[in-house]
């Protein structure tokens, strides 16, 4: 049984896939609070599927890009669970998850995935009609990345003038993440976070004068 989750958006999404199809998919009730919601959702998913932890054979996790705090909750959970249960952990770019779902729907057109990177920027990657990633992900101002192509994800709805082809605010789904892993719909990677930004930190200036 494959356990998957994504925490690279304001939502926590958890799913179980039995090799044939997704058997349970749960989405958090509250926005954010990934640290509080992820573990109980995993437990709930296992209860609903009627499985115990020893039934898990692999883990798939969204590696972002996305807000760092939530992203790390997903990654440290995946790595630690994988370590304890001695099962492999696969990373998937969270934009690829949105792309895999969208490719089925859009049929035959290139498109981009854009999500909210805060600070008036978006995370963006571009895809061909089959949902294979062509470029990205990058983080930048919407105006710099503006396009007329169909745009999947919240980045489009947040900045409609830069992304007139926006198609609705979807967030990465763990069910589709599971399909990406089982059907190899995108390249799998190590469970390393895609931060795309350096930490905000500057070496200190000389101490302020006090007299």
């Amino acid at each position, binding site marked *: 049984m494959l356990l998957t989750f994504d925490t690279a958006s304001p939502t926590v999404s958890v799913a179980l896939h039995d090799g044939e199809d997704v058997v349970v998919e749960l989405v958090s009730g509250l926005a954010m*609070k990934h*640290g*509080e*919601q*992820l*573990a*109980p959702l*995993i*437990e709930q998913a296992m209860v609903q599927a009627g499985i115990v*932890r020893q039934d898990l054979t692999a883990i798939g996790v969204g590696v972002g890009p996305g807000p*760092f*705090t939530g992203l*790390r*909750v997903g*990654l*440290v*959970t*995946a*790595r*630690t*669970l994988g*370590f*304890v*249960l001695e099962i492999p952990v696969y990373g998937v770019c969270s934009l690829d998850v949105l792309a895999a779902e969208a490719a089925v729907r859009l049929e035959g057109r290139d498109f981009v995935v854009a999500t909210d990177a805060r600070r008036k920027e978006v995370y963006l990657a571009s895809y061909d009609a089959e949902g294979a990633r062509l470029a990205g992900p990058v983080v930048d101002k919407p105006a710099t990345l503006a396009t007329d192509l169909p745009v999947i994800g919240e980045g489009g709805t947040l900045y409609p003038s830069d992304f007139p082809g926006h198609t609705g605010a979807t967030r990465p789904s763990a069910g589709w993440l599971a399909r990406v892993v089982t059907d190899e719909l995108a390249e799998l990677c190590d469970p390393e*976070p895609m*931060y795309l930004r350096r*930490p*905000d*930190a*500057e*070496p*200190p200036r000389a*101490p302020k*004068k*006090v*007299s």
Partner: protein
Amino acid sequence: MKHEPLVLGIETSCDETGVGIVRGHTLLADAVASSVEEHARFGGVVPEVASRAHLEAMVPTIERACDTAGIALRDVDAIAVTSGPGLAGALLVGVAAAKALALGLGKPIYGVNHLAAHVAVDQLEHGPLPEPCLALLVSGGHSSLLRITDVTVGVDPMGATIDDAAGEAFDKVARLLGLPFPGGPHIDRAARDGDSVAIDFPRGLSSRRDLERHRFDFSFSGLKTAVARWVEARERSGEPVPVNDVAASFQEAVCDVLVRKALDAASSEGIEDLLIGGGVAANSRLRAMAEERASRLGIRVRVPRPGLCTDNGAMVAALGAEMVARGRTPSALDLPADSSLPVTTVLV
């Protein structure tokens, strides 16, 4: 003999990724990965840098602790983790990892208070805590006086800093003197070759008026400013700054206030045991001064060895083991990380 609980504790409230394993009061492993060098060039801990480092260090540190303890993870009876206070993003990595361990092992989880853990760690070295006891916790993040009646439920704050933490003052004064971060050990070393009465630096919240309202509280911001003024005046006059004397006199002022207020608090409560914890407890002058003055009052002083005073996973495991031993109810899986967890909330 009754079964002593085997507990794994995780601590990520600041820049140390700590994983400790204890059996009852026995320390089996204390693995720590520090990101302090990544912060040194910034002159202080950068939260995002710390959080990133925790994620990378977590599994390797758990693995190292298990290897050192010579145990298999499945043998652990419970997981304990620092729920707060501390840096929000940093705490969250530890709490999420602890939940994953609890889920993956099918074992209970205890989200505990970092400050109480600083107290409980002493049991690993000196055996059961005398109750009640008075705890002086001093580090870069906290300066508190706590009355401990039961380390798992009864922690009452008597006093705390109203501005900078003691360790912060050490860091800032070290920077003024051109000493590296973290400042504590460097000031301690410089002070050994200095004259502690060379400069009469102010003792914060020690005037009669201040004592009425802030008898057991601390303030180090005025002291820090006084040191800065003194150093600047020297520089302006073109004279060299006597780094060792400044360090020694500053350190004396900090320790004097900490020890005086701690002993006053203990005496006022009729408490005969003083425990000192936190990174600043590693300061050699603080330990010596506390022991000397306490013995005159018939008060016993307990200070864990320096490695257990700084933030580590063993202290969290020690408190977790106490929770299990005293039959406390474990935390729920939706346990939050709380950056401003009140000191009175020992178990979340």
